[in-house]
């Protein structure tokens, strides 16, 4: 198990190396704009642009720039400085991280609770009214784009522009360290909006899994033992049907920790997703690299954690 984890961690490094290289190459091969010119402001004179280009090291060949960057990352865990405002990328990302974590984990709680509850009831009461209504709803939830759902939620419930002024609107995010109550209320709508598609997907996933599991021989055994139907479903059925949910949840949370770009944008939450979006618009390579590396890191770590968790969930799995 330990050697397995070490081997996987080494792979994480190799993978991040590839990701950074590809991001770098994309930036160089398909430049969106000249970072130096953007930095120089309106109507810059050529000398100033050249000077900035030199300051940022953009006049060096691309491979030298890449090696310099990677040296910084590997030797000092230094992700460089923004082309835009010279702020340390690392500092900026860590500043933005709490908002993204709040959004992702809160949404995960919402979608897991709803998805598992709805999926279970739908599976047990198959073809009932509840099943039909919730599965139709799930289809809508999966199909609805998150930005549309977000705008709809704001239009309906935001306390500034909404029809029913119930929840705080866009841009109301407050860090938990400042005011936990406001933090919570400001995130309620974003949590549900972000969770909607996931909850729908998880409900469908669990429903179909649980229906399959309930026809397994060991479920018949559990009933033959004289267990209550409740115990048969909860202890024997869900225990097996939940395994793909754990995998999916691990990966989805990993992806979201790298930034929920659309949700963060709609609700104006200063998270990693917003940061990535803004830095792409500004051709701010170090910031792009930083957010991409962070996102990739969360995804590969989530993969690793899921694989390790699997060994605990399913005793037949050994590494």
């Amino acid at each position, binding site marked *: 198990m330990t050697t397995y984890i070490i081997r996987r961690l080494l792979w994480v490094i190799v993978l991040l190396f590839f990701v950074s290289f590809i991001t770098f190459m994309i930036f160089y091969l398909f430049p969106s704009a000249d970072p130096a010119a953007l930095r120089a402001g309106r109507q810059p004179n050529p000398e100033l642009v050249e000077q900035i280009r030199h300051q940022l090291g953009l006049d060096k060949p691309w491979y030298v720039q890449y090696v310099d960057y990677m040296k910084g990352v590997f030797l000092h865990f230094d992700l460089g400085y923004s082309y835009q405002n010279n702020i340390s990328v690392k500092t900026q990302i860590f500043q933005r991280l709490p908002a993204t974590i709040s959004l992702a984990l809160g949404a995960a709680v919402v979608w897991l609770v709803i998805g598992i509850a709805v999926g279970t009831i739908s599976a047990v009461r198959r073809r009932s009214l509840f099943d039909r209504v919730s599965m139709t709803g799930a289809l809508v939830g999966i199909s609805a784009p998150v930005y549309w759902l977000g705008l709809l939620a704001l239009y309906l419930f935001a306390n500034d522009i909404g029809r029913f002024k119930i929840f705080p609107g866009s841009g109301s995010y407050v860090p938990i360290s400042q005011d936990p109550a406001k933090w919570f209320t400001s995130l309620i709508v974003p949590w549900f909006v972000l969770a909607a598609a996931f909850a729908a997907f998880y409900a469908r996933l669990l429903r179909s899994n649980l229906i399959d599991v309930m026809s397994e*021989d060991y479920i018949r055994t559990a009933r033959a*033992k004289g267990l209550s139907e409740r115990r048969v479903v909860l202890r024997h059925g869900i225990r097996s049907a939940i395994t793909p949910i754990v995998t999916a949840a691990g990966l989805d949370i990993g992806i979201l920790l790298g930034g929920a770009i659309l949700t963060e944008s709609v609700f104006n939450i200063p998270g990693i997703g917003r940061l990535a979006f803004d830095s792409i618009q500004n051709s701010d390579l170090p910031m792009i690299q930083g957010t991409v590396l962070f996102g990739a890191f969360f995804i590969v770590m989530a993969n690793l954690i899921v694989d390790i968790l699997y060994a605990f969930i399913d005793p037949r799995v050994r590494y």
Partner: protein
Amino acid sequence: MSPLLEVRDLRVHFDTEDGVVKAVDGVSFTLEKGKVLGIVGESGSGKSVTMLTVMGLSRASNARIGGEALFEGRNLLEASNEELRSVRGNDISMIFQDPLSSLHPFYKVGAQLVEAIQAHQNLSRAQARERAIEFLGLVGIPDPRARFDNYPHEFSGGMRQRAMIAMALVNEPQLLIADEPTTALDVTVQAQILELIGRLKDELGMAVIMITHDLGVVAEVTDDIAVMYAGRIVEEAATDELFHAPEHPYTWGLLQSIPRLDRPRDEPLVPIPGRPPSLINLPGGCSFHPRCPYVREAHRRIEPKLAPVPDSPKHRVACLLESETRKRLWQDLNAGKEPVEARADVMEGEEVT
């Protein structure tokens, strides 16, 4: 003494998109305390559904169940789910064909036994654990204390079936239903498991219903045998009598298709021609008639009733041939004749249909 289990005219029909599947269509039998009954038949003959229905495990929304299943005088078919729950695993236990898929892969074997115990007995975890270990030992699992913490995949096939048996017996039921308990096992292990069931039956004084497609399996352990075909019992008799004086052409077919030690070794095995009928469109008349070598025109219209054989009231058969004809046919078959020859000999002059 009233019988332990009395099944009367049991019918289990499933409504499906293709039509009504008559899985069980009027099955009756009785089982005395401490006796072993074998239910024999091909796949789809209704033998498993019969017993699952008795346990209340075939209650689906599309199932229509009729008749009676009296367990100690109580009709289980009318029992509430809660009443049935207290019977299952407590008074009546069941073991299944494939012990690997029948044990939950994510729970330790011991924990699954403890769960069965605590479902019916008011024991603490520690007491239940001791009892589970005791039963794991009873079924011949070596070092049961250590094995208690193993997962099913860490057991061999035979060990798993032993563990299943232990789990079925922890509450000392009066009836054990074994549904093809040896089909998924190696031949050597099969014998051990049958021997184990026979021994535990005596030790715990329980009755056993052994469901199988293999007459060879039930020959040693059963007191009586019921042969099922297309959802009905076509013949039932004491085991000895069924093997030595079988009355139904289907039973003859079954007997001739298994190797026997008391027959010449070069005697060919004769498979039963054709396939089991569709349970949605049962053939009219005797449902075995499309595969029966001795069929007469009238057999396609008249339904045979399960009736006692003249000189042996406990031996019952559902066949339209006359008793005398059946005796002579079996004599011919027993002498090594092919079914066609036997027919020509005994039913001479009758038109072959």
